[in-house]
């Protein structure tokens, strides 16, 4: 049996997950239909897709933070830290001890809006201390020492005084840094960042991305980075997963996916990025035709069928299989399974 290097073993793998939202007045909505993702220690996986495609729902499902009307109907979220037994997070009960031991401690999360995601009436120091008090049983004083060190590490000047500041007394960038310090307080093995730079201006955005990359090098955690900004993906990610209307349509290394996208949606996405070129060489951007259908109008088969230029017979009715294209590069598209068959014929 060949030895698998430790680093390549996935620490978190989501397979075939579907999440259904029910409401008393409307038909159920399957916001996430088929998600397969794997996270490797020390690597960053970027999850991209347009608004409403289920990125955030997927991220929240990992920590079971969804509202009561959301139900994970199918699939598993296996968390396998190297030093302990693997757990299926889907099987854990809400508010149960094992789940709480994972939240914040093993897997932690950074949210999009640092202002509204931090309590307005508690100091940031108080909110960070709490992580270490609940997970490591530190005394408030010891926890505060660690908090100050953490704030210093995430680049907040005057960390000791800033620990006593309230969120509204800090700038957006500092607030997000405080949020990052909080997420890293217990040196988690997985960090989920749900659009952490969307609410920030471009300069601050670049600083936060640098910080996250550097902290990842220091702490060695796996990172799931959710964004809709392909520029950010290119900057921070090792791997990228593309989501369309509740399905992960393609996952692979950033180089493979950007250079040779296999799914028509990814291809369309890549050709919609403006490129720097001389005036003579400029080409018009080609937008994706049509609009995203509502989840209830989603085709039975591949969700992209209604807008795909290559759609053919089985696309609308049969869901494509997850097909390996290269090393750690997968996509779900009938084109991939058809071509070899025709080539053989």
């Amino acid at each position: 049996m060949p030895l698998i290097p430790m680093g390549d073993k996935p620490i978190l793998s989501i397979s075939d997950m579907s999440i259904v939202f029910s409401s008393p007045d409307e038909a159920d909505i399957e916001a996430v239909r088929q998600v397969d993702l794997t996270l490797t220690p020390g690597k960053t996986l970027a999850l991209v897709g347009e608004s409403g495609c289920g990125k955030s729902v997927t991220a929240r499902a990992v920590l079971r933070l969804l509202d009561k009307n959301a139900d994970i109907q199918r699939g598993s979220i296996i968390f396998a830290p190297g030093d302990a037994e693997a757990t299926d997070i889907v099987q854990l009960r809400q508010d149960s001890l094992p789940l709480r031991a994972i939240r914040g401690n093993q897997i932690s999360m950074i949210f999009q809006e640092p202002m509204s995601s931090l309590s307005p009436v508690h100091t940031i120091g108080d909110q960070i201390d709490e992580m270490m008090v609940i997970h490591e049983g530190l005394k408030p004083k010891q926890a505060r020492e660690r908090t100050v060190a953490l704030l210093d590490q995430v680049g907040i000047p005057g960390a000791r005084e800033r620990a006593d500041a309230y969120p509204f007394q800090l700038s957006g960038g500092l607030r997000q840094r405080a949020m990052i310090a909080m997420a890293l307080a217990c040196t988690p093995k997985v960090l989920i960042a749900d659009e952490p730079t969307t609410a920030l201006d471009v300069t601050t955005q670049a600083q936060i991305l640098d910080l996250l990359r550097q902290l990842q090098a220091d702490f060695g955690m796996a990172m799931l980075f959710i964004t809709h900004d392909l520029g950010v993906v290119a900057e921070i990610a090792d791997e990228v997963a593309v989501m369309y209307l509740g399905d992960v349509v393609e996952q692979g290394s950033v180089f493979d996916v950007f250079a040779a996208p296999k799914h028509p949606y990814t291809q369309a996405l890549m050709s919609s990025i403006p490129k720097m070129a001389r005036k003579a060489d400029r080409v018009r951007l080609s937008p994706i035709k049509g609009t995203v259908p509502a989840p209830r109008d989603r085709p039975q088969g591949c969700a992209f069928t209604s807008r795909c230029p290559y759609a053919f017979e089985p696309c609308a009715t049969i869901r494509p299989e997850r097909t390996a294209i290269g090393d750690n590069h997968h996509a779900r598209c009938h084109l991939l399974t058809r071509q070899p068959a025709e080539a053989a014929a």
Partner: protein
Amino acid sequence: MLGFFGKRLIAMVLTMWAVSFVAFAIIQLPPGDYLTTYMATLAANGDRVDPATIEALRRQYGFGEPYIIQYWKWISGIVLRGDFGQSFEWKAPVTTLIWGRLGNSILLEGLAVIVMWLVAVPIGIYAAVRKYSLGDYLATIGGFLGLAIPNFFFALILMYLSFVWFGETIGGLFSPGMETARWSPARIWDFLSHAWAPILVLATAGTAELIRILRANLLDELKKPYVTTARAKGLSEFRTILKYPVRVALNPLISTIGWLLPALVSSSVLVSVVLNLPTAGPLLLRSLTSQDMFLAGAIIMLLGMLTVIGTLISDLLLAWIDPRIRYGSK
């Protein structure tokens, strides 16, 4: 914080001055004065009054002088000598009449406020967290019943039930022998065995209102992202809710303390009459019907003062628990 306190203090003094001015105007509004009422009563009984005596009294009390001069006499007596004037009806200084009664009022209503909060806060939290559950509906129904039943009616029902079931009359605040005794464990026990009924009556309506306010506030807060953050940290659901959304949802409640006190005093007038309580309410009612103007004026002014002090306390409390007010965030 000190500047905040200073500003509030200055505003408080100005408000008090305005309140005193208006209070004095109000007690002068009804046509006639105490002496005309007094003469009418005497005449109705067939007695004759010497017009010279009346004229002497009129001059002594300053009736007939311009409003401003009467007001000046009254307010300068209060501010300089702590003298609220004489009660015509009781033939005694107002100060000796009201302090004991006002003390009873504050004690009773303070206890009612505490009971209100102790009952309303847990129920409100439960009703919000378990929205549309059986408990929430029960709390809502109970709350509306409490709001809908007039206090004095509830007091009557309690009196009736306690007489029918236990053969006891509830009323008053002390047993006959205990009224003037010094405070001792026996007197406290006696007080509590009498006071539970008015406290219960006074607390019901307010409790219902507090439950509704807290439930609505908390429902808003529970949806905020910072609650999700707290859950994502690994806090238990119980601690998440108590430490974060409840803490924020309580702020608007604290600002109600200011008007809670005077609202209780005015709502307690009828209850006090029904249950025969020696509080300020019945005294105010009587002094107004008999045009005993200095007594009425003193009580109205002290009620105004309670409101202003209550508001100050709630402002300070709010600044203390909510940093956004303390540091004046945008």
